[in-house]
């Protein structure tokens, strides 16, 4: 990134950004009044309506990595990027809602690692809680770093000032209002992000000559017409064979990676746990799935527009070089938006990056306070004590995130590696959870041994791949798909094998944790009979499924 990206923000733009910050802090203050117990602070007292938790569910994931990364993929690979949303995210979100959420919400656990502890005891719990907490600190740092670079590049503030100001804002509202403040702000941020990106997309389409103009321009560009269809996506996976590429996308991205991410990641699941009833908890990911299917239209499409419209990217791409795809959306904002709309766009980007970081931090402080501090350090303190621990953990996490952001600024490759690495925890976690929920015979030892074996095998494949040593001829996304797939398979095989030779728990203890041992009423909403159809998660999920299949067919 360089001087060429500096935007001519004037006082109107600054006013719009300042207004946004004022509202964010205002919500933090308002949410504080609702906090009287630790459950209020960490899980919003399980009191939020489904549309709020559903939008927060999407927003928590609509951070820097999503907006910058997916628009970059759009510029680089074109329509194939849609797979991340329509094959990846949405089916996994629906699966979480229908199959797994009843266990999480019905068992009244306060976090995903806590479910792990109730099902498999402390071995698997410690592995899960610690790796999750560390990963959140790291990802919060990356979000913060990207946030600060955008401020630095666009507005010309120094990196360190940007870092500290952004961190202080996030800290203030999450420490004041806990999860409620984070969730309410995520809902606000969702609308600000849409207000920024939707006009940008429409103006871009207008400039490039409508949808037809875009398809014509993309067909003439180096990627060619292939970039206008989603399958087989060989450029994306890096596989030469179209058949393998399709299998890689469906099983690797669609099944293992996405199911792993969406169903076990506490950052997401926490939003649903804050809902006010079983039906709302189940509806959370389903309601989130609707905006999620349309997010690529305002993220991937602008990336594609930038690839044909923005001088710096189009010429470099035509010359066969490596353009700065990550800056696609920033270039587009610079080229298309007048003052005024520019301010909304900057507010939207800041909103996105802050939402990501606040989500990481609010999930971190819950796991730190309930799963690590209360479980292993100080067990029987009064409730207010844990709220205080949570607030202090928030401060600590923010300070550490500033530190990791500092590391990210000097060693960007290390951060990429670590992030890939943490991605590998999800696939085996998903295998362990799903086996543990439906197979009562699975033992506690199998829980942690399977996790460790699965994660180790993923790391093994990745080290052998083109990204590091180059022994196995795979690179980029393809390597990640294969690594995740192997991790999933190894976890299942090892878990089954270990379960056969170790002693299972008393089946009576597994009530609420394993399907066959749980009375069906636990999983049903108490008002299930009287809910209108749009409050019934299964019906909504059916509609979402039909829509996402239609979208897939439309861009075949």
């Amino acid at each position, binding site marked *: 990134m360089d001087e060429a990206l500096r935007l001519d923000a004037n006082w*109107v733009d600054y*006013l*719009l950004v300042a*207004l*946004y910050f004022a*509202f964010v802090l*205002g*919500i933090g203050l*308002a*949410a504080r*009044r*609702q*906090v*009287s117990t630790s459950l209020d602070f960490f899980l919003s007292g399980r009191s939020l309506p489904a549309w*709020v938790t559903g939008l927060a569910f999407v927003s928590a994931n609509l951070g820097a990595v999503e907006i910058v990364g997916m628009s970059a993929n759009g510029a680089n690979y074109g329509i194939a990027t849609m797979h991340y949303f329509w094959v990846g995210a949405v089916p996994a979100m629906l699966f979480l809602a229908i199959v797994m959420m009843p266990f999480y919400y019905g068992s009244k656990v306060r976090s995903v690692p806590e479910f792990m502890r109730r099902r498999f005891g402390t071995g698997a719990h410690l592995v899960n809680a610690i790796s999750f907490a560390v990963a959140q600190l790291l990802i919060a740092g990356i979000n913060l770093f990207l946030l600060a670079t955008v401020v630095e590049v666009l507005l010309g503030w120094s990196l360190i000032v940007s870092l500290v100001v952004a961190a202080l804002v996030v800290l203030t509202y999450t420490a004041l209002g806990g999860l409620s403040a984070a969730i*309410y702000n995520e*809902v*606000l941020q969702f*609308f*600000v992000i849409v*207000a920024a990106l939707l*006009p940008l997309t429409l*103006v871009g389409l*207008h*400039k490039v000559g409508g949808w037809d103009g875009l398809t014509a321009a993309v067909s003439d560009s180096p990627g060619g017409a292939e970039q206008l269809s989603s399958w087989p996506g060989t450029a994306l996976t890096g596989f030469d064979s179209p058949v393998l590429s399709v299998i890689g996308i469906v099983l690797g991205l669609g099944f293992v990676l996405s199911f792993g991410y969406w169903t076990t990641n506490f950052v997401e699941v926490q939003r649903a746990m804050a809902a006010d009833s079983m039906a709302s908890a189940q509806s959370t990911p389903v309601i989130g799935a609707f905006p999620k299917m349309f997010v690529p239209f305002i993220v991937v499409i602008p990336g594609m527009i930038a690839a044909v419209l923005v001088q710096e990217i189009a010429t470099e791409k035509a010359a066969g070089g490596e353009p700065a795809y990550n800056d696609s959306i920033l270039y587009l904002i610079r*080229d*298309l*938006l*007048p*003052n*005024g*709309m520019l*301010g*909304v766009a900057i507010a939207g980007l800041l909103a996105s990056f802050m939402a990501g970081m606040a989500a990481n931090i609010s999930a971190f402080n819950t796991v730190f306070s309930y799963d690590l501090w209360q479980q292993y350090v100080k067990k029987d303190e009064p409730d207010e004590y844990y709220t205080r621990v949570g607030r202090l953990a928030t401060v600590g996490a923010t300070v550490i995130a500033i530190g990791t952001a500092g590391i990210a600024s000097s060693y960007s490759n290390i951060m990429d590696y670590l992030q890939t690495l943490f991605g590998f925890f999800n696939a085996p976690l998903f295998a362990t959870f799903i086996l543990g929920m439906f197979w009562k015979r699975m033992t506690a030892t199998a829980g942690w041994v399977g996790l460790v074996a699965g994660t180790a095998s993923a790391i093994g494949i990745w080290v052998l791949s083109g990204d590091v040593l180059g022994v196995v001829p795979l690179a980029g996304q393809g390597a990640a798909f294969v690594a995740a797939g192997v991790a999933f398979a190894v976890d299942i095989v090892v878990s089954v094998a270990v379960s056969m030779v170790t002693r299972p728990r008393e089946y009576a203890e597994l009530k609420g944790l394993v399907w066959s041992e749980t009375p069906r009423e636990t999983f049903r909403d108490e008002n299930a009979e009287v809910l209108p159809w749009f409050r019934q998660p299964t019906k909504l999920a059916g509609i979402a499924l039909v829509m996402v299949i239609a979208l897939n067919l439309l861009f075949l």
Partner: protein
Amino acid sequence: MSDKKTTPPATKTARAFDVRTFIAALIGLYGVILLLTAFFGTSEEDLAKADGLNVNLWTGLGLLAFAIAFQAWAMLRPVRVPPRPDDDG
């Protein structure tokens, strides 16, 4: 969080906190500011950037319409807070 109970009206509004009002207010303000910019601060250069499209005008109108609809929803279906066990009113 000590003597909140001495001012019952304040507690009641706090409980009835509705994020929809915040969203409608911010997006509405954005709409108004963009419309003002569209009428008083748009140069030929700005228009040329987007091939003659007055971006601030259309976005401003869109945001304002959204804000009004959202506020209407909040007013037609206000938040009903179920009384908590520790509530005295």
